[in-house]
C-alpha cells in the first residue's frame, strides 16, 4: 500500500532518465546507469538523507535509498568503511583498541590486545590480516542473499561454502550429522533415534501450519518439546538447538528455535551440500563496502573522515567537525558509535557481547571439509569446564578465505553470557580448541587412513577422527603459537535474533516532546549495534524498518531490476550487438551438477 506521505520513487523522480512501466513492476535500471548521470561537482549543500556510519545496516540502507532516488550523503568519522562491522588490519585494530580504551569509541569496552612481534616486524605484515569486528555467516536461503543478488552487489564479492559445524560435547568435537543421508549412514545412531530425527526434520520444514504439534509447547523450551514430543536424546537435542539452530541458551522458546532450525535446513543444498557461505577478504566489512559502492553508483555521496557534530531539527542543518554544513530535508540516521558529542538520545545498549579473536600459527585444516576454509564450532551450555550457561560460538576461518596468510587461522569466539563469567567461558572454550589442536599436530601420521573417508557419492571428505576423540587424558607438550589475541566487550540494544522491532526507531514520534535542550542529536534516528547473532539475518530487517521510516513505505525496498545484455539487444539500443558491454552477468559458468561442489563459488 502506498501511504500518502510516501516519497516518489526513483523512476517517478527521474522520468527522463529511466525507462519504466507502471507500478508495481520493478524499476528497470539501464545497464549503463550511473555512467549516464553526471554527479554534481561540489559537495551537496542540501541532501534528502544524511547517514553517519558505514556499518552493515547503514550501508544496505544507503544503497536502498540511493536506488530509490533519495539524495544520500553517507559519512563515517573513521578513515575506513564498516564502522561496527569493519574488517580491519592489525595496525587498524591497534588504533581501534587504543580508542576504545580512551573511551572515544562508544558501545565497546574492556579491549585487550596481544600482538606477536612476528606481525609487523617479522614474517607477517599487518595488512596480511583482515579482522572482522562482528563476523557473520550468510545462510544460502536468506533475505540478505536475495538482496545481494538483486542489487548485484554480489558481483563485487567472492563467496566460499561453509559446511562444517562441530558440536563440542564430552571433551570432543563431533562433526554435525545434518543430512538425511548422514543420519541414515551414521552407525552410532540407534534406529529409533534415526526415525525420530527424520520425523522432526519433516515436521520442522513446515512447522507453522502444524499448530497442533507445537502450539501446546509455545511457551515452553525447545528442549522440552524435542524430548517430550519427538523423544530425542540429549546429543540430538543439543545438535539441533545449538549447532543447527545456533541458539544461545536452553531457554530458547519453541517458535524461535523452530524458525532457526528451519533456516539451516532450507539453506542446505541451495548452492551445494552446505547451508552457509562466507565472503572472502572479510565478512560484514566487505559487504558494507559492496553496498556503499552500489549506493555510490546509485548517486550517493561518500565522505570518510567526516564527523557529525550536531543536528539542528529546526533549521534541519547538520554540522560537521571540519566546519562544513549540510541541510537535510528528510532524516538524519546515525550509528550509535558515531553520535555527536553531547548526544542525549542514544538508545541504551544493555546487552553485552563478549568477543575474543585469535590468530593462530597453524593451518588447522582438520576443522574444515576439503576445499573449504571455514567452520563453526559450538560449545553448548554445560559443555565447558567453566560450567557455561550460555553457548560459546567459535567461527573459524583459514587462509583460503584470504583474511590471513597461508599457515595461519583466525578464531572468532563470542558469547552472550553477561558480566565477568563471559570471559571465563570464552577462555575455557579457547583452551578446549587449543588442546584439540595440539594433540592433532603432535600425534603422528599413523591414523592417516582413518582421516580420509569416502562418502556415498564418491568424493572424499577429510573428517578428522581425532577431533572426535576425547582429550581428557591428553597433556600437551607444547603451547600453541598465538600471533594475535583481541578481547573486547561490545554493547548492543538488540538481543541475538531479537528481530528489530519497528517501535525501536520511533524517536521521531511527537518530536517536540522528545527534544532535550542542549542535546546535539535532537531529531535524529539511531541505528542498532550488531547483536551477537552470527548470521546476517537481522540486517535486512533493520534496514527495511529504517527505510520505511524515511520513505513512508518499504514497498520499493530494492525494487529494481538491472537490464541485461539480451534485453538491450532486444530493445534495439544502438551498437549493442557490437559490444559485450552489459554489466557483467557471469553467464559463462557451469550449472551442471552444481549440487556436488563445495568450495569457491559465485552466487
Amino acid at each position, binding site marked *: 500500500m502506498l501511504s500518502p506521505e510516501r516519497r516518489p520513487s526513483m523512476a517517478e523522480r527521474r522520468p527522463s532518465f529511466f525507462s519504466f512501466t507502471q507500478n508495481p513492476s520493478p524499476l528497470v535500471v539501464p545497464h549503463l546507469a550511473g555512467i549516464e548521470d*553526471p*554527479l554534481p561537482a561540489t559537495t551537496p549543500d542540501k541532501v534528502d538523507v544524511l547517514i553517519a556510519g558505514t556499518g552493515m545496516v547503514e550501508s544496505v540502507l544507503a544503497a536502498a535509498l540511493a536506488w530509490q532516488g533519495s539524495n544520500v550523503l553517507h559519512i563515517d568519522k573513521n578513515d575506513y568503511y564498516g564502522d561496527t562491522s569493519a574488517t580491519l588490519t592489525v595496525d587498524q585494530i591497534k588504533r581501534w583498541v587504543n580508542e576504545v580504551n580512551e573511551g572515544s569509541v562508544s558501545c565497546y569496552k574492556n579491549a585487550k590486545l596481544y600482538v606477536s612481534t612476528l606481525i609487523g616486524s617479522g614474517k607477517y605484515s599487518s595488512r596480511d590480516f583482515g579482522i572482522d569486528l562482528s563476523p557473520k555467516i550468510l545462510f544460502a536461503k536468506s533475505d540478505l542473499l536475495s538482496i545481494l*543478488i538483486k542489487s548485484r552487489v554480489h558481483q563485487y564479492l567472492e563467496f566460499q561454502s561453509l559446511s562444517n559445524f562441530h558440536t563440542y560435547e564430552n571433551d570432543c568435537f563431533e562433526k554435525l550429522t545434518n543430512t538425511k543421508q548422514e543420519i541414515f549412514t551414521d552407525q552410532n545412531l540407534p534406529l529409533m533415534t534415526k526415525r525420530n530425527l527424520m520425523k522432526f526434520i519433516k515436521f520442522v520444514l513446515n512447522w507453522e501450519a502444524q499448530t497442533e504439534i507445537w502450539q501446546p509447547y509455545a511457551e515452553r523450551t525447545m528442549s522440552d518439546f524435542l524430548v517430550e514430543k519427538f523423544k530425542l536424546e540429549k546429543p540430538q537435542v543439543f545438535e539441533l538447538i545449538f549447532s543447527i539452530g545456533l541458539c544461545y541458551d536452553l531457554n530458547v522458546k519453541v517458535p524461535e528455535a523452530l524458525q532457526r532450525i528451519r533456516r539451516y535446513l532450507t539453506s542446505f543444498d541451495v548452492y551445494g551440500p552446505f547451508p552457509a557461505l562466507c565472503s572472502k577478504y572479510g565478512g560484514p566489512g566487505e559487504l558494507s563496502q559492496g553496498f556503499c559502492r552500489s549506493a*555510490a553508483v546509485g548517486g550517493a555521496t561518500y565522505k570518510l573522515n567526516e564527523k557529525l557534530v550536531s543536528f539542528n531539527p529546526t533549521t534541519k542543518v547538520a554540522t560537521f567537525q571540519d566546519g562544513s554544513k549540510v541541510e537535510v530535508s528528510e532524516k538524519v540516521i546515525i550509528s550509535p558509535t558515531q553520535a555527536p558529542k553531547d548526544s542525549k538520545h542514544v538508545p541504551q545498549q544493555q546487552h553485552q557481547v563478549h568477543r575474543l579473536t585469535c590468530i593462530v600459527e597453524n593451518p588447522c585444516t582438520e576443522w574444515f571439509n*576439503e*576445499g573449504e576454509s571455514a567452520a563453526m564450532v559450538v560449545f553448548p551450555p554445560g559443555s565447558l569446564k567453566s560450567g557455561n550457561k550460555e553457548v560459546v560460538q567459535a567461527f573459524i576461518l583459514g587462509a583460503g578465505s584470504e583474511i590471513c596468510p597461508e599457515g595461519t587461522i583466525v578464531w572468532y569466539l563470542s558469547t552472550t553470557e553477561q558480566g565477568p563469567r563471559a570471559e571465563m567461558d570464552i577462555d575455557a572454550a579457547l583452551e578446549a580448541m587449543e588442546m584439540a589442536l595440539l594433540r592433532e599436530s603432535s600425534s603422528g601420521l599413523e591414523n592417516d587412513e582413518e582421516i580420509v573417508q569416502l562418502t556415498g557419492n564418491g568424493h572424499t571428505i577429510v573428517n578428522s577422527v581425532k577431533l572426535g576423540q576425547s582429550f581428557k587424558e591428553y597433556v600437551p607438550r607444547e603451547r600453541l603459537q598465538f600471533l594475535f589475541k583481541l578481547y573486547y566487550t561490545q554493547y548492543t540494544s538488540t538481543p541475538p535474533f531479537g528481530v528489530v522491532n519497528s517501535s525501536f526507531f520511533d524517536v521521531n514520534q511527537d518530536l517536540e516532546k522528545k527534544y532535550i535542550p542542549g542535546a546535539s542529536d535532537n531529531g535524529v534516528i539511531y541505528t542498532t549495534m550488531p547483536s551477537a547473532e552470527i548470521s546476517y539475518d537481522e540486517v535486512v530487517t533493520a534496514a527495511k524498518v529504517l527505510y520505511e521510516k524515511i520513505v513512508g513505505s518499504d514497498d520499493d525496498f530494492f525494487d529494481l531490476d538491472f537490464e541485461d545484455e539480451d534485453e538491450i539487444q532486444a530493445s534495439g539500443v544502438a551498437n549493442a550487438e557490437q*559490444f559485450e558491454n552489459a554489466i557483467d552477468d557471469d553467464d559463462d559458468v557451469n550449472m551442471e551438477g552444481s549440487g556436488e*561442489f563445495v568450495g569457491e563459488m559465485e552466487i
Partner: protein
Amino acid sequence: MLQFKLVLLGDSSVGKSSIVHRFVKDTFDELRESTIGAAFLSQSITIHPNDGNETKDVVIKFEIWDTAGQERYKSLAPMYYRNANAALVVYDITQEDSLQKARNWVDELKNKVGDDDLVIYLLGNKVDLCQETPSTETSPDSNEGGDEEQKVRAISTEEAKQYAQEQGLLFREVSAKTGEGVKEIFQDIGEKLYDLKKDEILSKQNRQIGGGNNGQVDINLQRPSTNDPTSCCS
C-alpha cells in the same frame, strides 16, 4: 578467454569515465560535467600475440571498475583496488596541477595494490582541446565555426613521458572526445598483461588438464536464473 580487472584513477573532471565510455560504448557525451559512476562495465578485445613463430587470437575481457565518485573525498574502499591487474591513471593536459595529482594516485596505487605485475597506464586526456595550436594567439581563429573553446596545453608531452619512464608506466595522450588513442590503450594493456601473465596462464591451464588443483575445489556456481536464490532449491 582471459579476464582482467581494470580500475580508473585520477582527479575529478579529468575525463576518466569518458575514456571508458568511449571504449565501451564508442560515444562521447558533451554534457558530462564530472566523474560519473557505473557498477562495473565489461568489454572484450582480441589480441594477436606471437608465441614462437605462431600467431594466435586471444580474447581478453576487461572488467572495468569506475570510481563511482568515491575518489572525490578520498573515500575509495580497499575493495576497489583489490586484485586489480591494470589501472588507468588519467590527467588533463590542460590542467596544470592534474599531473601532480596523477602522480599521487600512482603512489597510492603502488601502496594499495600488492601485485608487482600491476600495469599502470598514464593517460593525458583532452588532446582535442589543443591540437595543432602551439601558439595561443592563433587558436581562436583556427577554430572558426566550432563551439568548443580551444585551451592552452598546460602539461608538455615530454614532462609526462619522462615521469612515466621513471616509474615504468605506459603512457599515451588521448582524446575521449574524438576517440583518438582510446582503442590503443586497451590493446596495449591487453598485450602487456598477456606478456606478464602468460607463464601463469599456461601453468594454470596445464594444471586444469592434469586435474589437480592443490586440493582446492575451485568451482563457479551459477546463481539461479531468477532473482530468487531459493527457486532452484528442491
